[in-house]
């Protein structure tokens, strides 16, 4: 027996209401709209709607810069007039291991040093408390939690709870984790991010260029499109962070010659460091 489509939508809304989550129509629409190419679909996900719990996995602690950069790229698109703050939470004991976010570096990601409020928290229960408080605040665009360790306190139940809270408040939560192991979690999206060898500067091929990320989406649970992505072959993507946000890079054709690809033209490139001596001294 086939029901007309409006009923299906209504039913879905009812279930969503029972499960205490928004219908996620945005996410579903986003996916259906960008069905033309898998890569575009993935690229669209980089501007995911608010109210989702993301997990960002990096392989090692020494890639913490990559993980934070990618997360800031995702979270930055959620900032708006009504939501002007990002909250970053870290266990204070892990600061030396993975480093503290450095305000002057945010400029490359389109953020002012002021935007990110840093919480250095002593214990895991307090961190989770702060996370829930921050998610509940309607003026927070996203909460970023950076965990170098694998605390027991963060289990499936807790992540489910965070996910529901995030959906209810419309605030996204990003969990940055490290390592190859994957624990059960209720995150809607799970990203695996690795640094990529950058394209170099347009005038100096031997200098590091725009940040490059090799990303892989490992999990996608967005409304009715749940699990669709798993069936597609392509869920890898290489993107550069430019002043226009994430830009897809096609390295398949010339994987070994990234230098031929010109860097985005209008971006004011950081000057070579040596000519700033007069200012620096």
């Amino acid at each position, binding site marked *: 027996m086939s029901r007309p489509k409006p009923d299906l939508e209504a039913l879905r809304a009812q279930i969503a209401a029972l499960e205490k989550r928004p219908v996620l129509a945005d996410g579903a629409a986003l996916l259906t709209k960008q069905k033309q190419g898998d890569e575009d679909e993935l690229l669209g996900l980089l501007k995911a709607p608010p109210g989702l719990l993301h997990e960002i996995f990096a392989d090692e602690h020494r890639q913490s810069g990559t993980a*934070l950069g*990618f997360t800031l790229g995702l979270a930055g698109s959620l900032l708006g007039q009504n939501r*002007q703050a990002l909250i970053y939470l870290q266990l204070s004991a892990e600061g030396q291991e993975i*480093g*503290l976010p*450095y305000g*002057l570096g945010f400029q490359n990601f389109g953020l002012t040093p002021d935007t990110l409020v840093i919480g250095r928290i002593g214990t895991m229960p307090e961190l989770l408390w702060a996370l829930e408080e921050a998610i509940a605040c309607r003026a927070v665009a996203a909460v970023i939690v950076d965990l170098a360790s694998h605390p027991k306190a963060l289990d499936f139940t807790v992540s489910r709870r965070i996910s529901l809270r995030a959906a209810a408040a419309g605030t996204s939560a990003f969990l940055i984790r490290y390592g190859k192991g994957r624990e059960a979690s209720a995150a809607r999206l799970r990203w695996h991010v*690795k640094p990529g060898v950058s394209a170099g500067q347009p005038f100096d091929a031997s200098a590091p260029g725009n940040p490059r990320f090799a990303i892989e989406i490992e999990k996608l649970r967005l409304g009715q499109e749940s699990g669709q992505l798993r069936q597609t072959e392509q869920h890898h993507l290489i993107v550069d962070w430019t002043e226009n946000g994430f830009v897809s890079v096609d390295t398949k054709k010339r994987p070994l010659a990234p230098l031929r690809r010109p860097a985005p033209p209008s971006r004011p490139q950081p000057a070579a460091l*040596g000519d700033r001596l007069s200012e*620096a001294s």
Partner: protein
Amino acid sequence: MLWERIKGGMRLSALDALASKAGLSVGQNLSDARALVPDLLVFEHDADFTAHVFSDFADWHSNASPVVAVDDTMAPYGDLILDITGVAHLFGGEDKMLATLTSRLRALGYSTHGAIADTVGAAWAFAHFEPGRIVPEDELEASLGDLPVHALRLTETQVAGLNQMGLKSVGQLYGRDRKALQARFGASLVLRLDQALGAIEERVTPRLPIAEHHAERRFAGPIGYLDDVLMTVRDLAIQLGIRLGAEALGAQSFHLFLYRVDHKVMTLSVNAARATRDPSHIAQLFVNRSERLEGEYDAGFGIDMIRLAAGSLSPTPDVQVGAFEIDDGAEDLARLYDRMTSRLGPLAVVRSKPVDTHIPERAVKLEPVVARTPDDPSALVDLPVRPLRLLPNPEPVEVIAEVPHGPPLRMVWRRVSYRVLKASGPERIEAEWWRTSQKLGLLTAPTVGEAEIAPQDHPDPTKKPVKSEPLAQHVSKLEEFDPEITVRDYYVVEDDAGRRFWVFRVGLYGASRPPGWYLHGFFA
């Protein structure tokens, strides 16, 4: 019985009734007293401790009147002054108030004397020589005149001098030639006399800040549970909010005073990022703060009064958000910061504030979000590329680099080897010469200190430096400003896997000291 050391001798300083009956007196030699009463029980008198306990005790009396002071003109403890202006009616009159205050102390086993008068000096005099009196204004001069000159808070030599002259009562001093008195007995005699009579105002320094706005609640029986206290705080916050609202005020700091039955006062303070009078917010801040108490909460034998006071008041009118204004949620954000700070501590929730300097670790100051200071307009914004993360302490790396100014080609960090493919730099950052005398005692101290002593102290450069080395240790080892060792050359390096690091070299090749390489940050 107590004794203390006075002028090199062990003398009695306080006696109980039994001891005075046995014929001992204050000021007597301890050995004499022991000879007189062999089974004497004496303790050494710890004056500091007593003064401390007494001041706690004084604080507790702020449940009777907001202005409580300890009069330390004669002794560091023992004399308590309460300004009861406008308070007495709460106790049903001055006589009843005096009776209540002294009897409640007597019930606890203290011997107390009290008096009420118009001036501090007169109140002291009556409390010591005619306890229990309440002297109306018009009788003050006459009644004071009958008291001995001791009552004027004079030194022993002044009293002895006056007695020698036959001036035994205060009344005899009235109308005497002031200049002669001053010449003979010192200016303090005239001052004390004027103070007692009210000719000169005597200031009382209150022990606790006077809160213009507060709400309080007394309990018929003492309460002990923290939950009860917090529930009361919620009620008090509503009262306080109404009072502040009536005057269109908001407060930024809130103090909670818990008066214990056993004469101690516990205080809890919270600060808000912006002035507020919202009861639920205030109460929530105290709930969060109480979770950070960790066993400090001790109700003793119970709490019989709770007062919530507001400080740092500022006009906070009720505003209506205009039709065309956009509610940017700044208020919600401020409240979130308040809540987080009240539970996690002020230093745990910080923002990055750019500072006008090139030294990377100093260029961003982490500032508590609730104690926001204006931004520094001269702070550098147009800097060369900076990393996304900075290590609080730079970690030493072992580097193979081109001499003299080449970027690293290979490096070993945390026991892992990296092959550098791309690099840019150097960006040279010099020590700030204007900090020559103090520069190493500041934030840079651990960094530069480590950098300089690392070659000797850490023969294995891959070993992580000890993070908790005391600052002073570095400072003592540091030398004066020396461009050869304080200059840093920063390089952005990218390894074959695309990881980007910020490394720097301290010192120059070919200098008297070999340069050291450190890793300072990560790029995206």
